[in-house]
């Protein structure tokens, strides 16, 4: 079979304030019909520009296509008139965007939006369009299609929305699908389902897929061939197995290495030594959000974000908290830090009960527990210079002269691997990874005893990710810190944590030493979670496990074990009783399978 998509010598420039910048310089990409081709690169490497250029959607200016050709089914897209390209879009080429919420129109039902496409593009009448839409909803495996199609986008979960988007892309019989990070905002368990779906559709319908992502392991699981894009230039391309097992380019090697950070030699003796001094105890912590009906003011409904969580943490250890989004991880740590008022329970940090401290004492005590947020773009005040951001805790808690202050801030910046002079810049002049370093420097400036890391690497590029993790690791030893790390990226948690807690719908389902749980997960949810993540060792989509169904609402959690509607080992007792924590083989599990 011939090449369906062929790109030759494509050069795209962007005009900026002072000069032209080359963003794409691709000598050749060729995708055979019915195959999937993956493009991997950091943010800013030109992936999305490429996707837009193929569809003739590139905004000009500031973009400018200097030369080259894009052959789609042997027709040059770049030479087509605007009218021809419009015909092409939707009918031959479709795109699946990152964010399904902003792609769907919130004021129409999803079914209506899908029918509209058919009525507009194919001039179907209403009944036929409806039939086709339902057929498509079945194809993308939506649960009860007729019902789902009558819902509005906000009533659907992220995974369902993404399925609708995929359905829309396929409605008019597109032959090439461009998937621009289709699973970026989804949970790992849902992600696996979407990847499987794309893979199946590709095989069943013979569509060609151009898969764009910044996650190498994700792409390697789905694609036949991959290309590594860096600064608009393809540094390496070939069949997936070839690129991954035998990388030629230095950058590819670095990417591969950063995907699987080397296991640190965890010194167990240090752990046992530290075990006797507990720094943090969380005792039956609860955080309920009342659900208020505007009209009746009923207050008896609650979102049980954190429901009866207890654990303790020894000095110098790292605790990892994992779970899908909405399981209460972030609420838990925010409550720990007393950024949110708890509903019930007690947090004892360093022998002080945090919730009963008076205002002034609390402010004083706060410097001992610091937090590093997920998103480095909003965690730094954009109007402040970096020196003022890093130095803010110093200004609040210590009095010092101007020169001393600058010196201190500079040394902090150097500690986290930033040049000392960079403190006179604004945060927007830094990349994501550098911004995260600034946030870390800020949290270190008051010599805290514990740092909470809320998804510290999920918003930054994979290459910076491993260096941030290494930095955190070395700082921990240097400054005798205790970490709590939250992440949905299990490899990050595995790398960092000594102990882990697995949460599901506000409750702890499994907890224990990280090595033990990673090697031998016991709770069915933990098992499923671990198996849903594409990794280098999984080269086939079929090996991925996705948990059936979606995370239930925390307003009305299932009676009994909260995982029971999605559990494969569900028994009668699970539907009525709540399991309690059991200690088996060195860890604690809440599951009836192990109840004696």
């Amino acid at each position, binding site marked *: 079979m011939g090449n369906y998509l062929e790109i030759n010598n494509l050069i795209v420039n962007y005009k900026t*304030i002072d000069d032209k910048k080359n963003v794409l310089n691709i000598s050749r990409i060729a995708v055979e019909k019915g195959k999937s081709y993956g493009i991997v690169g950091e943010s800013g490497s030109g992936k999305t520009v490429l996707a837009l250029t193929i569809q003739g959607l590139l905004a000009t200016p500031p973009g400018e296509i200097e030369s080259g050709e894009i052959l789609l089914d042997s027709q040059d897209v770049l030479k087509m008139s605007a009218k021809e390209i419009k015909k092409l879009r939707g009918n031959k080429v479709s795109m699946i965007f990152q964010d399904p919420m902003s792609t769907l129109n919130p004021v129409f039902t999803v079914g209506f939006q899908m029918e509209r496409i058919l009525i507009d593009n194919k001039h179907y009448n209403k009944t036929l369009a409806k039939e086709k839409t339902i057929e498509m909803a079945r194809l993308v495996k939506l649960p009860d299609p007729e019902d789902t199609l009558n819902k509005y986008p906000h009533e659907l979960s992220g995974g369902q929305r993404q399925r609708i988007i995929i359905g829309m892309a396929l409605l008019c019989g597109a032959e090439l699908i461009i998937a621009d990070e289709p699973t970026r905002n989804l949970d790992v368990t849902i992600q696996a389902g979407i990847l499987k779906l794309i893979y199946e559709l590709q095989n069943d319908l013979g569509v060609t897929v151009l898969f764009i992502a910044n996650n190498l392991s994700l792409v390697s699981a789905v694609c036949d061939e991959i290309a590594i894009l860096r600064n608009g230039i393809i540094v390496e391309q070939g069949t997936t197995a070839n690129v991954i097992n035998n990388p030629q380019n230095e950058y590819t090697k670095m990417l591969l290495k950063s995907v699987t950070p080397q296991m640190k030699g965890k010194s167990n003796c240090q752990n046992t030594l530290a075990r006797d001094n507990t720094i943090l105890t969380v005792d039956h912590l609860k955080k309920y959000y009342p659900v208020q009906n505007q009209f009746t003011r009923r207050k008896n409904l609650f979102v049980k974000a954190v429901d009866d969580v207890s654990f303790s943490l020894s000095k110098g250890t790292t605790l990892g908290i994992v779970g899908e989004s909405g399981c209460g991880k972030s609420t838990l740590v925010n409550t720990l830090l007393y*950024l949110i008022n708890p509903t019930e329970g007690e947090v004892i940090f360093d022998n002080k009960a945090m919730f009963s401290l008076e205002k002034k004492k609390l402010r004083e005590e706060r410097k001992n*527990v610091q*937090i590093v947020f997920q998103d480095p773009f*909003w*965690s730094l005040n954009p109007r402040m*210079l970096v020196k003022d951001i890093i130095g803010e*805790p110093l200004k*609040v808690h210590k009095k010092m002269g101007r020169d001393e202050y600058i010196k201190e801030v500079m040394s902090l910046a150097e500690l986290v691997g930033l040049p000392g002079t960079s403190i006179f810049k604004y945060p927007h002049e830094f990349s994501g990874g550098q911004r995260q370093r600034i*946030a870390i420097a800020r949290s270190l400036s008051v010599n805290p005893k514990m740092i909470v890391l809320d998804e510290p690497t999920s918003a930054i590029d994979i290459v910076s990710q491993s260096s941030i993790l290494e930095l955190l690791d070395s700082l921990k030893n240097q400054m005798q810190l205790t970490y709590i790390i939250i992440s949905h990226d299990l490899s990050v948690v595995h790398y960092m944590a000594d102990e882990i807690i697995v949460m599901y719908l506000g409750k702890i389902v499994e907890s224990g030493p990280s090595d033990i749980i990673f090697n031998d997960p016991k709770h069915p949810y933990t098992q499923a979670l671990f198996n849903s993540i594409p990794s280098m060792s999984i080269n086939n989509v079929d090996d991925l496990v996705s948990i059936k169904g979606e995370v239930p609402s925390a307003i009305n959690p299932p009676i009994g074990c909260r995982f029971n509607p999605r559990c494969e080992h569900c028994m009668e007792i699970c539907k009525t009783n709540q399991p309690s924590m059991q200690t088996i083989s060195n860890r604690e599990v809440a599951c009836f399978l192990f109840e004696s």
Partner: protein
Amino acid sequence: MIYWNNIKSRVKDIRLTVYLLGKNPLTKIAMLLTILLIVIAILAPIIAPYPEDAVSATHPENTLAPISAAHWFGTDELGRDIFSKILFGTRISLSTAFITVCMAMFIGSFLGAIAGTFGGIINEIIMRITDVFLSFPSLLLAVTIASLLGPSTRNAQIAILISYWPWYTRLMRGQAISVREKQFVKAAEAIGTSRIRIIAKHIVPNCVAPIIVQASMDMGAVILTLASLSFLGLGAQSPTPEWGLMVATSKNYVLNAWWYSVFPGLAIFIAVLTFNLLGDGLREVLDPKTRKN
């Protein structure tokens, strides 16, 4: 050296803003006109051909003279040079409008920041008071207050101030509420920063952009309101060379001395348009949603 670095990045930020402003031709014109208006206001005594005419001099021999080389915009019913009066009028309009807007901005955003950050009962009290003021049409409110206080430029200013501050409160509160939820505010809280410091260092600096846009738009509106009040006899009193007052007096002579009404009217028109255009341009640049690089 260290302190120079400190200033450098702030200067860079301002330079970028000015550069982006200059990219829009209309904004560029507005910027040039603003500078021109300010220069005229400052240099009025030097540029004006008959500076004494703007105070109290009269020339009964030369009343309502048409446009000539000696009197570019003609003369009024007392023989005073209209061009000189308009130049001095710029001074009055610009300075009173500027002071009024600044005060409204200061009072309004201070209350708005407090209401937005603290929320709860403080928010309720401040916002309900604001609602009371906002429920009157602003010009009507200004007219009522000015007539209660008695006609003078200062009373007109107070009247305008009272009818303009609530807009800033509402704007600032909305901004403060959205900024309050940002992570850098949470981070500051986790550090142990005091409430007041959070407002001053984190919330207010991130809300200034829309406030500045609103202020530059309001400059035009306040100039217009001031002229309206003077036109109604509630603002500046004769012989102050105020634009609105000049238009008001000229209405008796409009049939045989068109220049008397047209030029002060034109002055008001240009000043208002300038500040509106400037406001639009600023919004485009300062609002991250419309900011293009």
